[in-house]
């Protein structure tokens, strides 16, 4: 790290004779204007992190990717003139045809346009991935923060409850939840609920462990000694120091959730035809993968790009929140 400031305190650089004036020491040059953004305004964790983020190419790149994916989800007609929900656009006679002028990704098992379906499938996949990630991070994160900070009985109860959820085999549990509530008209949200219910304990554990590590550090004791209350310690001292691993695991999980949606769709309980999702497309295409790889490759490629974009975003945010990496 920077060793230069050390010089300041050794020897005559430190005019002890100069008594305790309220004025800045004469050695201090007038405030430098180049440090404008830092001048006078207190730099908070988030504003510094944001300042740092805007300068990271990886962050900008991932943000652009995510923006494109979001536009694709909500205005798919901007990207394709073919409406895959219109049965007339599919022709069984052209099933598994390779790329052609009007159909650059080729056609799938039912002769539908793969490109249009991929574009239209983004919405469900991204909603499921993002919503599940947000829900698990919030629920697991808050509970983990609370259990890690409080310890004792709160921790014991919360930890035993998560163990119950851990004990449920995930595919069976998801099958059970989706099958039970499939007639409630919840649409794809049933998948979000099923995945969230089963996945939050992982976030909980990571947050709890990180909080416990942070809690034993001196700065928490020092904060208490200087009069910080429990909620201040929880949100100012523990949370920012425990956030990094949660962000990493959340962004990695996001891809996992989209893949889990595919598995559920494959079992017939997730997103079901005529709805479209990448998972469903991958599930449909994999029987004929050797004959026609493209209907599987393209949604899988988009899935990978989405996951990559969110992982890059998470990485950038994590680095920006660690002052030592700036």
């Amino acid at each position, binding site marked *: 790290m920077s060793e230069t400031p050390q010089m300041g*305190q050794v020897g005559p650089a430190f005019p002890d004779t100069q008594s305790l004036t*309220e004025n800045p020491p004469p050695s201090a040059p007038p405030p430098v204007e180049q440090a404008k953004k830092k001048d006078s305004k207190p730099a908070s964790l988030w504003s510094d992190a944001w300042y740092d983020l805007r300068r990271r190419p990886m962050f900008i790149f991932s943000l652009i990717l995510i923006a494109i994916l979001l536009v694709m989800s909500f205005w798919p007609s901007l990207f394709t003139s073919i409406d895959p929900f219109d049965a007339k656009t599919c022709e069984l006679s052209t099933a598994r045809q390779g790329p052609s002028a009007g159909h650059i990704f080729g056609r799938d098992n039912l002769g539908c346009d793969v490109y249009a379906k991929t574009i239209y499938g983004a919405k469900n996949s991204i909603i499921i991935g993002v919503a599940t990630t947000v829900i698990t991070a919030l629920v697991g994160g808050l509970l983990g923060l609370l259990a890690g900070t409080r310890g004792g009985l709160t921790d014991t109860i919360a930890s035993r409850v998560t163990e119950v959820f851990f004990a449920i085999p995930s595919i069976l549990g998801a099958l059970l939840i989706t099958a039970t509530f499939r007639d409630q008209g919840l649409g794809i949200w049933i998948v979000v609920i099923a995945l969230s219910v089963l996945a939050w304990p992982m976030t909980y554990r990571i947050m709890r462990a990180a909080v416990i590590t942070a809690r034993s550090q001196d700065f928490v004791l020092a904060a208490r000694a*200087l009069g910080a209350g429990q909620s201040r310690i929880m949100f100012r001292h523990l949370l920012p120091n425990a956030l990094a691993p949660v962000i990493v695991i959340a962004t990695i999980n996001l891809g996992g959730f989209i893949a889990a949606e595919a598995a559920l769709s494959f079992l017939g309980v997730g997103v079901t035809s005529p709805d479209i999702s990448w998972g469903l497309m991958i599930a449909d295409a994999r029987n004929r993968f050797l004959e026609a790889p493209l209907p599987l490759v393209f949604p899988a490629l988009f899935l990978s790009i989405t996951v990559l974009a969110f992982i890059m975003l998470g990485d950038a945010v994590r680095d920006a929140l660690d002052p030592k990496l700036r």
Partner: protein
Amino acid sequence: MSKTSLEALPAEGGLGNEPLLAVDDLHVEFATRGGAVKAVNGVSYSLDAGETLAVLGESGSGKSVTAQAIMGILDIPPARIPKGEVRFHGTDLLKLSEEARTQVRGQRIAMIFQDALSALNPVFTVGWQISEMFRVHRGMSKRDSMKKAVELMDRVRIPAAKQRVNDYPHQFSGGMRQRIMIAMSIALDPEVLIADEPTTALDVTVQAQVMELLAELQRESNMGMILITHDLGVVADVADKIAVMYAGRIVENAPVHDIYKAPAHPYTKGLLESIPRVDHKGQELYAIKGLPPNLLAMPTGCAFHPRCPYRQDNCVTDVPPLYEISGTRNSACHYWREVLDGDQG
């Protein structure tokens, strides 16, 4: 800053001759698998405004635990305070609600720690952390509190404070970090400052500067200061009186000059003799024989007897009371007269 919680504590002065801070017969235990570890066994000391009390003792003697009990930052459980009082302006802090204690911490009694790097939150700038004291406890705006932070950094002599206020703790050297910690602790003008080995993690030249700074700040604001250390060399210049702790008890307390002139407890004597001295160059450094006692299995009688050159038979059986030597001086040794006269050892 609810007034109700602070009402119990008079702002200035106190009741009669009640000292600013008085620890009275304090006991602290820790529950462990091997049983209750008695870390502090009946410690009493007092502190007046403007006074510096040095609490001296080796690791595990209970000096830090006593300080943490005063601050109310012990984790309970496993810690337990079965007995004792910590009176601040005559009010027993141990009987206050947690909310009321939070009001006292930082504002009336503040503490600084040994390792300032780990005692500062790594993800916030130092300016943010210092100014937070004003925002939380004084309700200041961000801008005003930041100005106060720069002022404080100047006051603890951080060069170019204005430029460095938005730096992070890891960008400072050890001595500078400790200064920042000191700035945070004096931010709200506390009446008592507890410094728990403030210079142990620093190199010798920086140690002297930090001690000097502490002494100066104290003179200025007339704070009472409790200086916890195991380094007798650090103590001599700044302390008014010394309390020597051994195995959770105070074994000797006295004005600083008396102790240096003639210790009245064999343990203090051992500590003094183990200071390296220029005129003993080339000779072997003296060390107190034996090891600190196991707090789970304390020796009978006087806890120091297995290591004591003055040991007699009754030391093994009778716990020595804190004998009064003079009005300001006590020793927990049956044979303090012999020690004082330097008959043996």
